């Protein structure tokens, strides 16, 4: 059973790398109750800085490590100073959105500078293997273990024996009390971000060397893995994060041993969901914690929504309805069809993230469920396309709600993590469940849109179909918001404890919001599948989730008209200005950051 020893060693080494990311996340969470979604981007930046150092500057290994640590720490300090410190006194959702925006901006900057193609990052160590028992171990394995253990030791000494370390621990136990005792919380934050970023950057370098390859997809994976490890260990618990990381490394390694490489991530996210369901405070938290303090201030920015008169809305709806009758180009219709599809997704997300306050980062998974259901039903069972799309919506509503239900008792950032992980699980299941989803090949030859036996081929007919569906969904959602459910959802968002004290069951109302929202997203995915005629597991990716989130923030959380205005703006404006595709995500990230900072209530205001 020598291979088992190999898998164990491999698991521990990979776990050690995760620990470098997770410890940084835990430190930041401890001090500022914030899950830093940009941690993976710093890891990515670290890997590429390492590549520059090794390949272009030919620095020796110790120098490379120091160089990467310092450069990454600088990035961390910049993020803290300009991205997060201005948001210190804003609503709770703001820093969460800011780190998401920062992560996209950093990833895109790296991608634009170095191109998205993978690069080789040569290990600067001799390629020899030592026999240990039945397994082997190389110098890089030892180095990774060494860096992991020594940075844990250094961190321990820092937190335990230095004045600044005490300040960090004091601030993480009680921020207000620490401030009153004269602790400079800004300096503590800076320190923590610097340390976390340095660890993250070095971790990226080592992983790049370990696999001898770096690419821009590393970022999201690292954030996810680090967050999984941190949550498993208990958010904000530094030793817990280390143990959680090793556990995650082992679970993945054994999972790969039994089922194969493509299941690696699936195990990570299943571990996360299991921990969130069974022990939401992590494996090492005491079973019963003090009840949460009453939270002052609300989750979202208070604002009065912009009142748009009914006649103006009616005029706008009519104007877009007659648009195909006017001499407009195919290109404009095509762009607007995309906007309507995104609008449906945004309607769904604005209900879930805005109205009931569950900021979902995996919303594209609902598109995928709807698209695959509709495509497979119409292809294999010859169900009429119109019906298949409705079935896609229903499947998305049902399956989406069931999948997300474990996260119903979570709050704020944890919901975002859970939805991100669930989105990844859906995509991995689609990739691996070949007998049903056709795996990596994807589904081709999906029949075109048709209604009552008539194919919708002309751009105008497709336009009217997508537009009509979106308008109907928007009207339904407005009606929902005007009912007792609208106020119940918003009450849960504003204060779930007070809501429960007045008899509102969180499970019941979060389920209803996801059922309604899942239906709209599934319909959007279903229409998209028949429009594209080919889909695979990457058609509906995290970028679409983030785009939808940006649309929702731009329009105003919970705002139905805002969701559609936001979709038209974010799809239309880049087209109008002919902005190249690779710059678009960068722009979405920057728009998100600017909105959070300067107009958190969005264009039309929060409802």
């Amino acid at each position, binding site marked *: 059973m020598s291979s088992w020893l190999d898998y164990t060693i491999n698991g521990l080494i990979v776990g050690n790398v995760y620990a470098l990311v997770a410890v940084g996340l835990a430190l930041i969470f401890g001090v500022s109750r914030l899950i830093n979604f940009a941690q993976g981007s710093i890891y990515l930046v670290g890997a590429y800085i390492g590549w520059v150092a090794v390949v272009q500057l030919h620095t020796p290994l110790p120098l490379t490590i120091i160089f990467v640590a310092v450069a990454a720490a600088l990035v961390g300090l910049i993020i803290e100073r300009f991205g997060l410190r201005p948001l210190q006194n804003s609503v709770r959702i703001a820093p969460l959105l800011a780190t998401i925006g920062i992560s996209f901006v950093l990833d895109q900057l790296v991608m634009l500078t170095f191109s998205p193609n993978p690069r080789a990052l040569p290990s600067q160590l001799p390629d020899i293997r030592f026999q240990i028992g039945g397994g082997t171990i190389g110098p890089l394995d030892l180095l990774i273990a060494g860096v992991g253990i020594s940075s844990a030791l250094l961190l321990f000494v820092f937190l335990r024996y230095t004045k600044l370390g005490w300040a960090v621990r004091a601030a993480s136990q009680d921020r207000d009390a620490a401030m009153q005792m004269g602790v400079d919380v800004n300096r503590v934050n800076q320190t923590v971000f610097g340390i976390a970023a340095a660890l993250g950057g070095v971790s990226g370098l080592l992983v790049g060397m370990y696999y001898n390859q770096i690419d821009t997809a590393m970022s999201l994976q690292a954030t996810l893995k680090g967050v999984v490890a941190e949550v498993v260990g208990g958010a904000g618990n530094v030793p817990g994060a280390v143990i959680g990381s090793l556990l995650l490394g082992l679970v993945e390694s054994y999972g790969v041993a039994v089922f194969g490489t493509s299941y690696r991530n699936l195990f990570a996210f299943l571990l996360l969901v299991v921990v969130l369901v069974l022990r939401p405070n992590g494996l090492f938290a005491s079973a019963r914690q003090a009840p949460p303090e009453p939270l002052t201030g609300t989750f979202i920015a208070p604002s009065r929504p912009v009142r748009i008169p009914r006649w103006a809305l009616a005029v706008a709806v009519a104007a877009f309805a007659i648009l195909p009758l006017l001499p407009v180009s195919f290109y404009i219709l095509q762009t607007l069809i995309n906007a309507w599809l995104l609008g449906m997704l945004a309607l769904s997300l604005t209900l879930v993230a805005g109205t009931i306050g569950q900021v979902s980062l995996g919303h594209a998974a609902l598109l995928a469920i709807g698209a695959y259901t509709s495509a497979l039903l119409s292809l294999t069972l010859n169900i009429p396309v119109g019906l298949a799309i409705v079935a896609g919506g229903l499947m998305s509503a049902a399956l989406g709600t069931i999948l997300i239900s474990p996260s119903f008792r979570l709050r704020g950032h944890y919901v975002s993590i859970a939805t991100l992980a669930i989105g990844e699980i859906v995509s991995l299941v689609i990739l691996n469940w070949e007998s049903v989803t056709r795996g990596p090949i994807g589904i081709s030859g999906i029949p075109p849109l048709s209604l009552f036996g008539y194919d919708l081929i002309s751009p105008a007919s497709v336009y009217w179909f997508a537009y009509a569906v979106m308008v109907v969904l928007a009207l*339904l959602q407005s009606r929902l918001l005007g009912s007792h459910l609208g106020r119940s959802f918003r009450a849960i968002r504003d*204060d779930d*404890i007070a809501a*429960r004290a007045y008899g509102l069951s969180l499970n019941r109302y979060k389920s209803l919001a996801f059922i309604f929202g899942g239906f709209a997203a599934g319909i959007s995915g279903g229409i998209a599948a028949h429009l594209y005629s080919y889909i695979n597991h990457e058609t509906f990716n995290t970028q679409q989730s983030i785009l939808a989130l940006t649309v929702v923030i731009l329009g105003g959380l919970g705002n139905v008209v805002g969701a559609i205005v936001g979709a038209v703006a974010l799809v239309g404006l880049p087209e109008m200005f002919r902005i190249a595709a690779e710059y678009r995500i960068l722009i979405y990230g920057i728009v998100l950051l600017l909105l959070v900072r300067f107009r958190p209530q969005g264009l039309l205001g929060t409802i």
Partner: protein
Amino acid sequence: MGQPHAPLLSLRGLTRRFGGLTAVDGIDLDLAKGGLVSIIGPNGAGKTTLFNLVTGLDRPDAGTVNFEGHDITGLSPERLAAQGIARTFQLGRVFGNLSVMDNVLIGAHTRLRAVKPAVPVIGPLLELGLALLRPSSVRDEEERLREEIKAILARFGERLLPRIDQPAYSLSYANRRRVEIARALALKPRLLLLDEPTAGMNPSETAEMQTLVAELKAEGLTILLIEHKLEMVMRLSDRVIVMDEGKKIAEGPGEAVRGDPKVIEAYLGHGLSGTPEQESAA
């Protein structure tokens, strides 16, 4: 002290520990129907934790809570709200982005019938369907509740009615407390727990609140009150319970408790006198 009927609410040996600290330590309490019992004590005595244990926001480590003869220990806050227990919060937990009307309508949530048919399993889906379709039964129910809530808001004079459509975050601190009490009344509670209803209010506002609580008591509502303003406590309470460091150190009619040396020591011994505005949450 004499209780002609079985008490509406009865606590026995209620205990809650946080790590090494015993925030609530073996509290016994009986509250007769229509009675008003006040809980006083220095900051951090465990009063709010006791409220959390009674309303299901926290579970006791030991002891029982009985309500109308049923053991309700450890039930969820949703279930307890449905049984007619309403509370206000010490720090004023209104729904900031909801209008005054919507805030108070949430208080009536447990009384919705037409839109929330009591059907197992598919009940939530019916609720979604009814909310979208809104047949006349649902519209009538909503309309009735809105009228009723205007009547509740009218109890606060001109404080809330003119602001009925304003979001709660735009209200003054005192008005938020009033919205909370209105929300609790909209539940038609059989037991009302008020956690420092006059915190942050000036003397005339406090007097107004005192009149309102007296009215509610006269109407037969059973009330458990946490309050620091002793004058109000003395005037309203049938009985006063004094807590210190989680324990009940005195109980009895207001005047008797006031002169109790243990009570004086608890207040003065902690270096506190007068009427502190807030207490720390534990």
